[in-house]
């Protein structure tokens, strides 16, 4: 068992980010896509924490807290849009929403 380093944090962060990104690209359910976006946010948070741990600095943690706050606000807006969308089009399938095409 080797010592915990920034590399471990970054590996985790990258894995989470890629999972989130693939989710956004592949899944069709708006709600799932939204959760994947949250996953990407938090992947970034993990890398901030990792650097903060490595550097013994509070700056990274402060950033992480800020991002959580911003993500909360963004979640409100995002969920609101999803609510409006499902009410209006009666679907959460992203491929059904293409009104801007023509």
């Amino acid at each position, binding site marked *: 068992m080797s010592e915990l380093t920034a590399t471990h944090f970054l590996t985790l962060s990258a894995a989470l980010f890629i999972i989130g990104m693939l989710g956004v*690209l592949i899944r069709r359910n708006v709600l799932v896509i939204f959760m994947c976006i949250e996953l990407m946010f938090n992947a970034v948070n993990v890398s901030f924490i990792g650097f903060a741990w490595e550097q013994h600095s509070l700056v990274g943690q402060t950033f992480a807290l800020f991002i959580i706050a911003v993500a909360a606000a963004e979640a409100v807006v995002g969920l609101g849009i999803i609510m409006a969308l499902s009410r209006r089009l009666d679907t959460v399938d992203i491929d059904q*929403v*293409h009104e801007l095409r023509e």
Partner: protein
Amino acid sequence: MANWIFLIPLAPLIAAVVNFIFGRWYLRDRAHWLAILGVAISFGVSVAVVAQVARDEVALSQHLYTWIPAGDFQVPVTLTVDQLTAVMLLVVTGVSLLVHIYSVGYMHGDPGFYRFFAYLPLFVFSMLMLVLANNYLLLFVFWEAVGLCSYLLIGFWYRRRSAAQAAKKAFVVNRVGDFGFGLGVMLIFVHLGTLEYTGVFAQVGALPQGTITAIALLLFTGAIGKSAQIPLFVWLPDAMEGPTPVSALIHAATMVTAGIFMVARSWPIFAASPDAMLVVAIIGAATAFVAATIGLTQYDIKKVVAYSTVSQLGYMAFALGSGAWVAAIFHLTTHAFFKALLFLGAGSVIHAMHDEQDMRRMGGLKRHLPLTYWTFLIGSAANAGIFPLAGFWSKDEVIVGAWVGGRPIVAIVGLVAALFTSLYMFRVVFLTFHGPERFDAHTVHPHESPPVMAVPLLILSVGAVFAGFLGVPPERGVFHRFLEPVFSGHGAEVHHVSTATTLTFGLISTAVALAGLGLAYAAYVRGAIKPAVVAARLGPLYQLAYRRWYFDEIYEALIVHPLYRLSVWLWRVVDIGIIDGAVNGVAGLVNFTAQRWRRVQTGLVANYALAIALGTVIIVGVYLIVGSTLFQ
């Protein structure tokens, strides 16, 4: 009085503006009151100003403002009244006032009544500014303005195709002359750096001879256009499409004399260039002769009077070209009276005959229109130069001026043209007023004009009789003494005319005028000479005159037709093919490209997200590979 000069142009301007704005809905058939009031104020102030100029023998001027202040170069709007301007002021405002009054009767009931009484004061304003200007730029501006008014009034009955065409023709032909005039003004500016008359005349002598000649000829080009000299006179006869009072005011008495006025005003420039003077004299003499021959053959009463105008303008031009400045202005003044009279008389005839203008369908009108007959007769006699009417004194002086100015051939041409003048003038009188009635008496009932038209005729005929006495005795009359200060200095040559010469020429021109009268009498009253036989015997010569020396045909073939063809080519090939093609081609290309690219917009969020992700990956990838070298 100098502080009141501004009222002279301002009063007609206000009348014009008010009639333009309120005429259509509010003033309608009352529009003439304001116009007449404006011109009357103008006339009154002019008389007062001119009286002061005559008393003090100094030029008055009023500086209004500086139009273009650019370093050393100033274009002031300054109204200056010297003796020459004074004469023009009285002629312009006086004749205008009478024509305005006459028009009330002539234009009565016309749907464009208010419009007529907006254009007419506007013309008076422009013409007054033209004569009051103290520099060439201001002169040029109002030179163009009178051209515009002329265009508007020729095309006054714009629903008539021929009127619209004539207006266009006048405008375009005048542009040719104005272009030369504009170049002349620029040449003055380039060489002298000023455009004010006094400055220009003081320095012009120092220029090289070639430059002076170029300036003089370019300025004269403008006069050729505006004063209807050969080869640009073709617009004036067509301008008769306008209402007759317009013909009287603009195309006989005032505007067409602007060219003569301008040359007289610029006399130090012309006097400094003998070559230019020779050209002016030759063109003037040719115009006087050619127009007189054409006048002999026309049947439209207004056309004859119009060609007579061209011919008389030719007299003025050759007087200028012979250095007889005062004689030219004198002839201009007397001509204004009798030509306005002739046109208004012709208008009265046309009015009485229900818009018939062809003299072959008139005749015997003396009985029906006594007043018109007598006034027209006075005008004709004055124009023909019958002693002692106005035209005799001035025309005689013009011819003597050419003789003593060293241009005997020009003087002889002038005498020959005088014979024709007398012949065609009395031809009109006899064809119109004498002989059998050649109109259908059942449908046409000639009636004398109302008083509002008759009174101006009477006043003008008084002028046509007595205006000539201003210049008596010849060369030393009131008129000459008045104008003398303008035409002295700057190396002016003064030709003294012996009494014998004056008398000789007086006798010759009287004989010539009477010969013309006699010929006309023999041909058109007694029938001793058959005009048709003479015409047939002259053959091609008659055709040449009847077809107006083919000027219109030559222009049509040499200028109008090629230009038309060029325009069609420009339209079909350059405009539609190249310009429209380029514009439409660009739009088509954009459309084509867009049609291809719009496929990218699938509307599927997944695709957009993929594009973003791939883009990010590519950017990050590039950065990882080469970034280390990029940002060092």
